[in-house]
């Protein structure tokens, strides 16, 4: 028997599994992975013709209220323990590096203002961002480089990663706490200063705000 025949048999036997079976498959694949799996990765793993989106909905519903939850992480999915049971897991707690206040604020600014340039971060915080801060956040896998801004100088931008969303249990950037209110209040706008502001790197900040 050759490959093609095998493939044919396989497709005949498994011609799009019923949705319940698709859910089982998704469940097994997601369970086996520690890292979130993207929709695309899931589609690649499951037999052709499966409706991953629908199966995810069904699977998520099965886990509602359970000790383990199906969590959305950006455009990926993963099983995570329910947050209210964290106290049982004291033995699994991983020691985490304590972040400085500067690092935490920088992280928040990247998350809420992304894609954001270094000059914009400095303009918001009112102090220069030390070289190590962004490097540390990048090393932790929470911040990465985004596309260059199409303004004079073409500065690099920074964005948050899927690892960031996963760590803070965010389905997407839209789930950042209070982001809708902040946006409505205009606090996420890049409002240019009416004149050359006092800080020395401001002119450049302004330049970037022209887009």
């Amino acid at each position, binding site marked *: 028997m050759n490959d093609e025949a095998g493939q044919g048999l396989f497709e005949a036997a498994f011609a799009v599994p019923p949705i319940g079976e698709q859910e089982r498959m998704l469940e097994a694949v997601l*369970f*086996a*992975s*520690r*890292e979130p799996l993207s929709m695309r990765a899931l589609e690649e793993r499951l037999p052709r013709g499966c409706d991953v989106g629908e199966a995810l909905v069904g699977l998520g519903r099965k886990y509602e209220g359970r000790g383990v939850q199906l*969590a959305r992480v950006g455009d990926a999915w*993963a*099983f*995570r*323990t*329910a*947050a209210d049971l*964290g106290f049982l*897991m004291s033995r*699994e*707690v*991983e020691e*985490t590096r304590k972040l400085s*206040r*500067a690092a*935490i*604020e920088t*992280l*928040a*600014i990247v*998350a*809420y203002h992304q894609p954001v340039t270094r000059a914009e971060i400095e303009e*918001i*915080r*009112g*102090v220069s961002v030390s070289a190590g801060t962004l490097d540390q956040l*990048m*090393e932790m896998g929470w911040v*990465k*480089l985004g596309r260059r801004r199409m303004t004079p100088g073409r500065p690099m931008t920074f964005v948050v990663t899927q690892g960031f969303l*996963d*760590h*803070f*249990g*965010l389905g997407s950037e839209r789930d*950042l*706490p*209070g*982001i809708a209110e*902040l946006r409505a*209040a*205009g*606090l996420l706008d890049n*409002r240019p*200063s*009416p*004149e050359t*502001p*006092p*800080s*020395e790197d401001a002119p450049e900040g302004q330049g970037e705000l022209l887009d």
Partner: protein
Amino acid sequence: MPEDFFDADSTAARLAAEALVIDVEGFEGPLDLLLTLARSQKVDLRRISILKLSEQYLGFVEAAKRLRIELAADYLVMAAWLAFLKSRLLLPPDPADEGPSGDDLAAHLAFQLERLEAMRGAAAQLMGRDQLGRDVFARGDTETVRRDVRVTYEASLVDLMRAYARIKTKDDFTPLHFRRGPVFAMEQALERMRGILGTCFGWQELAAWLPEDWLHEGKRRRSATAASFAAALELAKNGALEIRQEGAFAPIWLKPRQDGGLADQRQQDGEAG
């Protein structure tokens, strides 16, 4: 901090000074300080009195100066700017004056403060969330029943940049040294020619005197030729060698003088003595 500072007799002044020192060090720049001062007005940041805030800040800077506390330049730049803003807010607007009005500037400062405050709040909310590895956990035991490993290599842009940075900085830290080109020194040539004088009889072209490993590559050959020629002149001067050339750019011929070696030898001893 000046040493005599603690000799100040007034305890109150000292305490005030210490409070200030702690404050300056605790602030991350003028905007941070302004935000703290603004909070003391206990009103919505949008209704904050920028005039009052400017006065508070200038008062702070004055006090710091009086107590001889070193203030970073950006604190002083901010002070100058706030003084300017204050004058704009107090004086009636000059219609001929171009540029933003005092109110515009004040509104922007209020916006900056409000935005910074908002980001601090957002940061706190973010850190207050359930975190992976602390409150929420991933599957602990990933299954080991898998076989046929397909390796995919992975690298991020940061890895790439870091690698390039490593190569670039490596050059920055090599100790400074001048790279010498391939140069055959006259001293080397002299020593070598003295060594072979005795084994050589009759006229020989200069090229024949060059060391074997300097013969082939252009730069090395030129350097060895020049050095050997200069050495030959030196030996001829000492009477150890005769030099002959038929015409301009013609080959140069060298012949050791049978008695000359001694003269050169004496000369050399003289130098050594």
